[in-house]
């Protein structure tokens, strides 16, 4: 039974199948919202309302010829997309989606999982950098350098912002943090600032406007992905979709009170809350223009980091006050 359960957990829900379906759905949602904000239709004619569009993109890329540049470091070049997909899928399993039964924690819920999650979310960025580097294309390399530069900018504010609710909840376990805020929903208001900082940092992590600097097509063509085609590109795109889901799930779990209520209600809450976060991310995307790499770093350190520190201070003060 337990084996079957784990099996189901890994493969169906919230494992690979669900993840695939839901991440393509969220890409569709993101594109659709973005298009509607721009007074356009967005994907419409692929499946009902264009729902199947990301899936069609995925299979199309799978069926395409796969070119490996001669100059590329072939081993790395080939294996990196799969690794990054594996990494984000693992991160997805850490989402407190099903087994948030605090008494008997499952395999994927343990104290400190929030740290592991943040770490796993940093990995794709590093992999991206390696991928760019291994393709030895000039534009990719510039993209790769930008990826790293940005990483140093947003990572610290993101950590600070996400960890301060954890400090307040006095736990390093996502499920517990969520449970804490479910018990005291008003305390969520304390973290609004942190939520905003984390939202912007996640936008940067996902390399979306205004932080789409590493693959700014008007500047450096395809950026990090310039040389990737076919299956590998498909895997990278899926990675980003899953990362979008995971990151918004993380924010929802930490800042919006998690997904209580068992499998069915939990699922509904998960969908609603992550879609809300994705909607906010799309809004930011439509609202801003791309900024320059130097501006990103300055912005991250001069505005985001101080705000995150402020949030942290407020949390610590409040905690002392409460106890």
């Amino acid at each position: 039974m337990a084996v079957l359960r784990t099996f189901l957990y890994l493969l169906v829900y919230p494992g690979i199948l669900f993840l695939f379906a839901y991440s393509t759905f969220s890409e569709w949602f993101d594109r659709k919202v973005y298009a509607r904000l721009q007074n356009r239709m967005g994907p419409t004619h692929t499946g009902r309302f264009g729902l199947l569009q990301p899936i069609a993109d995925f299979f199309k890329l799978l069926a395409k010829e796969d070119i490996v540049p001669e100059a590329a470091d072939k081993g790395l070049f080939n294996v990196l997309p799969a690794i990054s997909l594996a990494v984000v899928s693992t991160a997805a399993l850490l989402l407190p989606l099903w087994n948030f039964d605090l008494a008997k924690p499952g395999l994927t819920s343990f104290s400190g999982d929030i740290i592991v999650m943040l770490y796993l979310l940093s990995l794709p960025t590093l992999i991206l950098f390696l991928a760019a580097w291994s393709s030895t294309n000039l534009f990719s390399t510039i993209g790769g350098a930008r990826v790293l530069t940005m990483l140093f900018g947003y990572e610290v504010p993101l950590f600070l912002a996400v960890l301060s609710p954890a400090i307040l909840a006095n736990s390093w376990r996502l499920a517990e943090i969520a449970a804490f805020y479910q018990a005291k929903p008003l305390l969520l208001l304390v973290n609004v600032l942190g939520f905003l900082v984390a939202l912007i940092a996640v936008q940067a992590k996902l390399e979306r406007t205004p932080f789409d600097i590493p693959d700014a097509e008007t500047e450096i063509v395809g950026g990090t992905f310039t040389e990737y085609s076919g299956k590998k590109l498909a895997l990278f795109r899926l990675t980003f979709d899953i990362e979008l889901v995971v990151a918004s799930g993380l924010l929802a779990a930490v800042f919006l009170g998690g997904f209580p209520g068992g499998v069915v209600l939990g699922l509904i809450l998960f969908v609603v809350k992550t879609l809300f976060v994705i909607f906010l991310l799309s809004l930011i995307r439509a609202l801003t223009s791309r900024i320059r790499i130097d501006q990103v770093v300055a912005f991250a350190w001069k505005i985001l980091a101080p705000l995150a520190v402020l949030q942290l201070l407020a949390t610590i003060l409040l905690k002392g006050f409460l106890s």
Partner: protein
Amino acid sequence: MRVAAFLPELLRHLFKKPATVDYPFKKLEVPANFRGTPYLRPELCIVCRACERDCPAEAIEIMAVNEAEKRFRMVIHNDRCIHCAQCVDSCPTTPKAMQIDSLYELAADDRHKLKKDWVYVRAVMKPKPAAPAKEPAPES
């Protein structure tokens, strides 16, 4: 400087109908005097070759099939035509032997499919009310 100056406009459009036209499923209307594709009314053509001479894109070709019988062949190469309607302006007959319609969705997978040709007998010059067009006015 306001933060998010664009926000109200964006949100407003979220609930508005998109500006998108439902194109391939609903044809668009073109204005009345749209310049589409030129075509020939062979019964009126007097083979003066004014259109051929003035066409900027070498899109019109007139060949004599049988000089004695006054049989001619005109080919309009739609793959070269720039839809300028200069040929219509140049044609000296009334009503014009060269005319333009409003078709524009002509995409084809073969350039030969874009050619149109007519084989016809040269029309007799009708007695004209005004002076015969010795010098056809290209810009009128």
